[in-house]
């Protein structure tokens, strides 16, 4: 049974459902009351989680969600109304379920803390239940502690249609003949998957008459397999004489089921129920079949009537069977709109397309060399197609940023409660798409910025009123595309950055020299320096001067940049600019002797020819005078130990990173190049100065320069040589 895979799907779905639930709860909280749709969404989420958890025998989750669901049910029936307290309670329930889900498969089980939290939430929830529900609840509340541990059962299984149905009744002699019914089941499992199984021991006589060596067992099995009937029947060849075996292929006529029911010794109604339970028949199908039956035979004791009557059928049993099917349908409906694809498969596709871009570059280079115009035209068409395929493949990895933004609803809510400010989160550009990898990595930096804005940016309500602003502060997350990069803005309508304070702090910490004329932008950027904090108080949230530094590093690791706009008294906007993708960049191709290097194009400032006077001075110093400024430079020839002297002119490429400039001396400038970044292997992980490699159209390898590291290095060399001189 491939339960592991199913469990993975459950985990993914449960997290999505919990997110839906949280979103709905937050919207209810904002509106002050719940509309029907939101309440239904919450109910659906809780219900589905409970149902699926039941299939996997995750009793802790079932027990907890059951209580949640019961309270929700009262809300649905308008017996309860959502108020702030209740929404908070549901949010904590949501958190708790999330934790329970996290602990699935974790053998150590839940920590005592977590269990205590869970019990508290559960108790509070139970408070909302009326007497009748209290009773039902107490059974789940009094579940022994063992149930809180994570354990799984390999039984059960997922209900699905299109299954075989197998009815087995073993004769009394089976055991004495040396055969074990369980062995047949084990063998059956090799042919396919036992979806559901029901064991019957009704044939067993009273204790006194029961012969321990006789077999009284029977099984009703819903079985999924690709084998044909003959193969399945062959499993039971050995017991053909001693047992009654009925095998119904998938989608048999309902009448065939009814026949089996009739032919078996057990109570008809019980068997009907079993078929429903096994998922072989739906309630409706059974009913229909039985009604047809009723048309032929006189209405004596008919299954249909009994079932329709519902009086004798345990409603819970039927409801459970139906609920399971409903749930399967819901899952299917969701699958239709979105296809889940393994991220690895996407990565593989992107890799292949990267290879194709490289191969395409080779084709077009050779086409150029051949001078055959038809060939060139064909090659250019192919290049065009490749570009389109590349673009659409890259969009596959694109996800909307909205989901990431929405997570902050909760953060803003919790933090504003914590610090006692009334702050609203506005979200804009939620549908803006960016690379999945970037989305995963942007979460933390955004969290820092949001917390920082809430804590330091937005003033307290009194101060806001004194300044004539509305008491409720507004934090805004916005995203949009801007010429090949994506811009994410975190803005607040708070007091703005205090330019003078930052300047003063920076002077105190020797980050800048007095008398420098810095632009506002440059001054604001100082807040991203390590250890920089202007906060007078250190709170739990921020003020330690660590966060912003980390933010900058994270953003730069994504090859992004940060800008700050601030107006005193009106607010601050922090703008993060990120490249759209990390897999393919625009590079600038340069050559030193026979070696080729790539410099990320967006870091290149300008290219100049190395003047003769500077070339002569190269032996003595490693900086030039660039329009009156000192520009330290590195000779790539020396740096990478490339042999041979430069023959013709040499060029210097000026790059900029993090406010520092440096020059690289190279032989040839070969222009812009679509660069598919190939990461370096593990062996090269300690290599300095290189971040990756790419393959040129000619099949040669070009190394991608680690500009930030090289710039830093040239700056330090500059200092050293300065001292020596």
């Amino acid at each position, binding site marked *: 049974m491939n339960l592991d895979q199913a469990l993975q799907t459950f985990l993914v779905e449960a997290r999505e459902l919990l997110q839906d639930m949280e979103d709905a709860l937050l919207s209810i909280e904002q509106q002050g009351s719940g509309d029907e749709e939101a309440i239904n969404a919450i109910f659906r989420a809780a219900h589905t989680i409970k149902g699926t958890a039941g299939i996997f025998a995750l009793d802790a989750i079932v027990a907890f969600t059951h209580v949640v669901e019961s309270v929700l049910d009262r809300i649905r029936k308008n017996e309860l109304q959502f108020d702030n307290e209740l929404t908070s309670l549901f949010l904590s329930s949501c958190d708790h379920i999330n934790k329970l889900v996290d602990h699935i498969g974790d053998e150590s089980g839940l920590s005592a803390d977590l269990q205590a939290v869970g019990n508290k939430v559960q108790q509070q929830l139970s408070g909302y239940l009326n007497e009748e529900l209290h009773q039902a609840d107490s059974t789940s509340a009094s579940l022994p502690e*063992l*149930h809180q541990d994570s*354990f799984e059962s390999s039984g059960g299984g997922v209900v699905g249609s299109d299954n075989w149905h197998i009815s087995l009744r073993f004769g009394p002699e089976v055991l004495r003949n040396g055969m074990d019914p369980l062995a047949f089941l084990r063998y059956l499992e090799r042919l396919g998957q036992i979806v559901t*199984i029901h064991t019957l021991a009704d044939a067993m006589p009273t204790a006194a008459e029961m012969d*321990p060596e006789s*077999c009284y*067992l029977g099984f009703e099995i819903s079985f999924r397999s690709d084998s044909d009937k003959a193969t399945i029947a062959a499993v039971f060849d050995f017991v053909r004489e001693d047992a009654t075996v009925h095998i119904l292929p998938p989608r048999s006529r309902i009448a065939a089921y009814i026949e089996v029911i009739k032919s078996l010794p057990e109570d008809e109604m019980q068997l009907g129920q079993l078929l429903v339970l096994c998922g072989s028949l739906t309630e409706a199908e059974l009913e229909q079949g039985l009604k047809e039956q009723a048309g032929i035979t006189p209405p004596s004791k008919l299954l249909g009537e009994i079932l329709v009557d519902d009086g004798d059928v345990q409603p819970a049993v039927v409801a459970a069977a139906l609920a399971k099917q409903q749930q399967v349908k819901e899952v299917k409906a969701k699958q239709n709109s979105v296809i889940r694809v393994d991220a690895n498969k996407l990565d593989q596709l992107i890799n292949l397309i990267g290879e194709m871009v490289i191969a395409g570059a080779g084709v077009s280079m050779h086409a150029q060399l051949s001078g055959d115009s038809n060939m060139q035209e064909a090659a250019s068409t192919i290049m065009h197609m490749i570009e389109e395929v590349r673009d659409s493949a890259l969009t596959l990895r694109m996800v909307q940023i909205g989901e990431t933004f929405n997570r902050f609803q909760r953060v803003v809510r919790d933090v504003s409660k914590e610090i006692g400010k009334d702050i609203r989160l506005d979200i804009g550009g939620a549908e803006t798409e960016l690379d999945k990898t970037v989305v995963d990595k942007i979460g933390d930096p955004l969290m820092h910025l949001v917390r920082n804005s809430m804590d330091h940016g937005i003033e307290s309500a009194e101060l806001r009123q004194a300044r004539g602003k509305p008491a409720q502060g507004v934090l805004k997350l916005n995203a949009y595309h801007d010429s090949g990069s994506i811009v994410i803005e975190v803005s607040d309508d708070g007091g703005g950055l205090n330019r003078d304070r930052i300047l003063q702090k920076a002077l105190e910490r020797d980050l800048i020299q007095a008398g420098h004329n810095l632009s506002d932008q440059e001054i604001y950027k100082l807040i991203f320096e390590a250890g920089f904090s202007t906060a007078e108080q250190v709170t739990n949230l921020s003020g330690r001067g660590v966060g912003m530094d980390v933010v900058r590093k994270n953003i730069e690791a994504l090859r992004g940049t940060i800008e700050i706009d601030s107006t005193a008294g009106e607010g601050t906007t922090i703008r993060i600019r990120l490249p759209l993708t990390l897999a393919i960049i625009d590079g600038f191709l340069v050559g030193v002797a026979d070696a080729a290097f790539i410099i990320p194009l967006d870091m290149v400032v300008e290219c100049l020819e190395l003047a003769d006077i500077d070339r002569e001075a190269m032996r003595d110093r490693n900086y030039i005078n660039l329009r009156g400024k000192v520009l330290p430079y590195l000779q790539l020839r020396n740096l990478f130990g490339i042999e041979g002297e430069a023959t013709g002119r040499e060029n210097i490429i000026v790059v900029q990173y993090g406010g520092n400039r440096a020059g690289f001396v190279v032989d040839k400038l070969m222009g812009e190049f679509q660069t598919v970044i190939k990461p370096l292997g593990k062996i090269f992980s300690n290599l300095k100065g290189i971040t990756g490699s790419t393959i040129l159209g000619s099949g040669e390898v070009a190394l991608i320069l680690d500009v930030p590291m090289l710039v830093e290095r040239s700056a330090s060399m500059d200092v050293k040589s300065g001292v020596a001189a």
Partner: protein
Amino acid sequence: MNVTFNRESGMCTAQLEGEMTIYTAAEIKPMLLSLLDDCSEPEIDLSQVSEIDSAGLQLLLLAKREASRIGKSIRLVGHSPAVVECLDMCNLTALFGDQVVLSSQQKQ
């Protein structure tokens, strides 16, 4: 097959040790029935059951049914992996209603 009885103020445990199969079924049945007769809260410890087949399973079902017939509740405890596997395969864990603890690694 070894059966050890352990009585303590009305609660008694029968610890079954060895295999519960067709070969030992005839031996186990009277012992289980006597356990049901003698105790008010009978408990069967299955932790030492090395093997169980249909005959053994039938005995557990019989004990369960017999107990509810005479108005007692029987508890199965300490399910050994063999027992867990058997009950799971037949989807009977819920019927017995006992706690079965199984680490996720034991799952096949």
